[in-house]
């Protein structure tokens, strides 16, 4: 999964030394939790950062949040379709990740652990059908929802071809019409770049079932977006 890195910490990990023209070798990622310097922290893996969080390192958790806030919030937005819900559930996801950090078992993949929390909260929310109070869009504390939430806006930025823009917009719009299990596989597998193995762990569903949902979900999208009708026609 693509995770955002912190540019400032990555850049500062390489220091030029005037007396030596060659770049010094990158400092190794130190294994001992207490010995890690801030420079190495930005280069640490998600799992190492989580282990440091377990040891009370708040900076490590901030870095994890920096890396994962966009994937988590985008997943919620795509699944729930409501930016206000995303804001409240997104807060809860990261709060729980911090609160239950001791339950994370190193070296399990952190993204799997985090998206399991995210998915569970999203499902609970959908089950309760609890909506946050409707607010003015400008009050939302999310960046990008004004532009990325409009399928036609997204399609117009993707291509200059009007016909293709229409097709893209129709497919994106049709996503909300899919059954939840098919939509979930498409969101995780395509939009979040998760492998079937990762999805299997998060959803506790066999990979073969997930493959089937992917296939049938896309097939259904062809119909919902007009491809099936064209075929019949």
């Amino acid at each position, binding site marked *: 999964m693509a995770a955002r890195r912190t540019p400032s910490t990555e850049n500062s990990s390489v220091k030029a030394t005037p007396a030596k023209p060659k770049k010094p070798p990158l400092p190794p990622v130190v294994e001992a939790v207490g010995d890690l310097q801030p420079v190495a922290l930005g280069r640490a893996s998600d799992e190492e950062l989580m282990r440091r969080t377990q040891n009370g390192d708040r900076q490590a958790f901030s870095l994890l949040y920096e890396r994962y*806030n966009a994937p988590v919030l*985008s997943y919620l937005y795509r699944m729930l379709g409501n*930016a206000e819900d995303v804001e409240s559930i997104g807060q809860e996801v*990261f709060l729980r990740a911090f609160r239950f950090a001791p339950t994370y078992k190193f070296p399990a993949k952190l993204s799997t652990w985090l998206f399991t929390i995210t998915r569970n909260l999203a499902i609970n929310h959908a089950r309760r059908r609890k909506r946050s109070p409707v607010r003015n869009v400008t009050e939302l504390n999310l960046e990008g929802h004004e532009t990325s939430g409009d399928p036609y806006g997204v399609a117009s930025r993707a291509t200059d071809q009007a016909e293709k823009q229409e097709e*893209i917009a129709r497919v*994106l719009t049709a996503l909300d019409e899919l059954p939840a299990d098919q939509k979930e596989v498409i969101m995780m597998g395509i939009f979040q770049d998760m492998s079937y193995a990762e999805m299997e762990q998060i959803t506790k569903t066999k990979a073969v079932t997930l493959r*089937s*949902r992917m296939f049938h979900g896309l097939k259904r999208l*062809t119909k919902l977006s007009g*491809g099936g009708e064209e075929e019949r026609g």
Partner: protein
Amino acid sequence: MSEPLDIESDPFLMQLTDALRAGPGSPEWHTAVTKLRKDGVQGSSEHAMIVAVREHLESGKEYRTVRAGPGFTRRLMDRIDEEAASKHRSWPLATIIAIVGGFVVVALIAALVYVISPNSEAERTAELAGLRSGAFGQTVAQASFDGGSLTNWQESGGEQVKLDTAAGLRPATTQPSKQYMNAVLSTTSTVRPNERAVFEVLVAQPSDPTLIVQLFVEEKQLDASRPEELAWTLQNGEAQVALPDGRFANSGTKFSAGKEGSLVRIAVGPTMTVVTSGGRELYAGSHFLSATNLRAFGIRFLTKGGRAGDGVVLSARVAKP
């Protein structure tokens, strides 16, 4: 509901679903789409449409992409700060209840032990300290044995021996006897059992080695039961303390007083006593006297008569705080 795919037994479906997930540009995509176009597979028209939709999704991957704004991050970090602070400053409610409950139980047990116990260790220690260093300014009975009259004292005991009070207290001279005879001088005033009192007696070294000197605190029993007595005893130049239960404390302690005398001090409280003689503490502990009977103080001589000697008890005083 979509019909299940036989993916496990169909290698192409496996390839296709891999490609659909990985998306355009991936090796899986290239393999699957090439095969689809080149060989033609069953349902290829449907597969082609699915591939097309997948391409549209790839183009629209920006759809509903959001990230946290400053307000979101600030709010979250504030909540995490609160969470971390509350973790440090407070324990879970159940833990607090358990701890408080534990303290209550321990306190109840301690209180019960304190109530049941006739005299707690702290009380005993405090009582002993008061007996050792407390001021006893209120005189109950006093005698200097210089020939003057004795008030608040009475002579009792056997008819065989009288007391001589002219130059120190001593048994009057009598005919020698094989048996010990006794002569007693005790206070007519009494002290309540819950009061502290001190009996201070200046005792000189007896010239008669057979003479036994006893300074005692006795119960003035209200019934006919056996009177209890706590006594300091001097015999053969050695002092010891006799407790009411029949035990002796510090037997064989040398007592050297000379003619000027040495102070013997018996301090009694509600339950404890401290006995010192010749500047040495002979006993400090429970006196085992009744907690209800009044107490009197006295001097007893046990003598075989015959030899005249100097005064043995030079002065005596009973006082309360």
